[in-house]
């Protein structure tokens, strides 16, 4: 089966409408972004991106380097404001003022660079900017943070030799797990993962996938994950979205598409783009 990317996009949108009805969408969409544009001076990183995240699902975002995936994540976390476009959380239009604001709304992100401080301990990293303090003085309650960190890592089934270890000394998978633990511990409702499997061995990747699927199974979390590997994404995600040059070029149920189909779309889009460039 082949269809043009744009037709594919329309088809999914129509499916939503047919399945849920307009009001239903407002209820089930935990997060909705509409026509997000983001420019950095002359660079247009996002050129009208819309997405919806439904309760309890995993949305996989695929796309080449520079497609704007990380930029989109950083808008959804309040790290940077969009140039234009709207965000809806629980159906209500929301302007995210800061990372803390997004966190208060239950949005947590594991950034591509993991946002870990190498020279700090595992438990300090898990509690970074959300430290447990003795009342009044901004003094760290290290004992409580240690205890909580151990409990949290146990709860999500991650083994780290010691929570006192400096994070810089740990492996890629362990670091990823710590970054995820930080988000989970914050009781995230919406978890954003930016390339959680990048730079990771097969065994470590399997552990992280396992962790993500367990978080989903617990049912309190909706997840957007940016991925590189098509097959892995189709395995884990409920829905997938393809981003190219700052736009969503394809969107589909994970079950109703395949790796070859995605490859075809990517290639066609690319050729289309080349043609445009030549004729322009």
């Amino acid at each position, binding site marked *: 089966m082949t269809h043009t990317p744009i037709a594919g996009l329309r088809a999914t949108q129509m499916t939503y409408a047919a399945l849920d009805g307009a009001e239903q969408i407002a209820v089930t969409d935990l997060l909705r972004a509409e026509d997000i544009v983001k420019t950095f001076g002359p660079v247009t990183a996002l050129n009208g991106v819309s997405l919806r995240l439904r309760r309890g699902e995993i949305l996989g975002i695929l796309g080449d380097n520079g497609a704007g995936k990380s930029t989109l994540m950083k808008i959804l976390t309040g790290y940077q404001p969009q140039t234009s476009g709207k965000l809806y959380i629980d159906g209500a239009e929301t302007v995210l003022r800061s990372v803390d604001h997004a966190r208060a709304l239950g949005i947590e992100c594991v950034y591509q660079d*993991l946002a*870990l401080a190498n020279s700090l301990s595992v438990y300090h990293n898990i509690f970074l900017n959300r430290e447990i303090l003795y009342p009044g003085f901004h003094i760290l309650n290290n004992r409580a943070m240690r205890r909580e960190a151990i409990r949290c890592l146990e709860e999500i089934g991650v083994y780290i030799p010691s929570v006192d270890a400096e994070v810089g000394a740990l492996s890629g998978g362990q670091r990823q797990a710590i970054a995820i633990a930080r988000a989970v511990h914050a009781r995230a409702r919406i978890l954003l993962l930016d390339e959680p499997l990048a730079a990771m061995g097969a065994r470590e990747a399997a552990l992280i996938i396992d962790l993500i699927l367990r978080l989903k199974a617990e049912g309190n979390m909706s997840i957007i994950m940016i991925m590189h590997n098509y097959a892995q994404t189709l395995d884990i995600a409920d829905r997938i979205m393809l981003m190219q040059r700052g736009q969503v070029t394809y969107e589909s149920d994970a079950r109703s598409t395949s790796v070859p189909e995605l490859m075809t779309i990517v290639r066609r889009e690319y050729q289309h783009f080349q043609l445009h460039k030549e004729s322009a």
Partner: protein
Amino acid sequence: MARTLNTMLKWRELSVIVVAVVLAVYFQIANANFLLSNASLQNLSQFIAPVALIACGEVVLMIGGEIDLSAGMVYALTPFLMYFLTRAGLPAPLAIVGALAGAAAVGAVNGMVTVLLQVPSFVTTLGMLFLLNGLTLTLSGGTPVGVDAGPTLAFIMGRGGYAEFVWAALIVLVMHFMLRNTRWGLHTIAAGANPTGASEAGIRTRELKMVNFVISGALAGLTGILEAFRISSIDPTAGGTHIMFLAVAAAVIGGTPLAGGSGTIAGAMIGAMVLGILNDGFTLIGINAFTFDLILGGAILVAMLCNILISRYRRRMAVS
């Protein structure tokens, strides 16, 4: 054995302590007056105190990959601010507070230019160094002035033999505790180790950095005032680049890497002690100033190398 090694690695200050003790013992053997005479000890404490105080500010900045080259000039300017405020009729304690506010303001300017205009602090504070030096020389007309304050205040502010050292010790203790056990300290280290990551975690890294420049300025100013009281005179050529570089050297010897990401205040204090012991020890033995600088340079190089090697080793130990 492995345990001892681990403890040693955990307390990175320990290796510097060993160096300090070894040096002290050596000079004690070479010259019996070194530690056991009160005059000599007091001398030593008066070398260590200003270096340690300024180093506190430098460590905090160096953790964030920044440096304050103007600290020694803030040190020279601040007592003059105090002097002029007293002349304008302010009581001495208020004049001190006002002068410290001035020193903090210099830090704020350093911080704002560095952070908001994204100028490397090396450049910002280098400019500030020359600017303040010119300002101090102009304001003072190049001549020293006296300090006028009541005897009690003067005693507390540095006239007393060990007063400055007590100040330094107290501030080092407080700053060391704060760096390790407060939100500010944790965020300073996090922002130094991973600036982007820290701000992604919601830490206001820019504000944090500006605050730290203010701290450095205020500490340098306080040091200048303490020194002025100690020698009962305000000298426009006091402090300067020499004291600033000694402070940076103390920080580096103590285990704070210039590249940032980590650092220790207690280490800087011990670093200052090492410098003090070298300085006084060689003076007592009768080595001249040229040789001292030669040895100091060597010591800094060795300390930096040790730093790099030790942190590499720690990484490897922690993984296994």
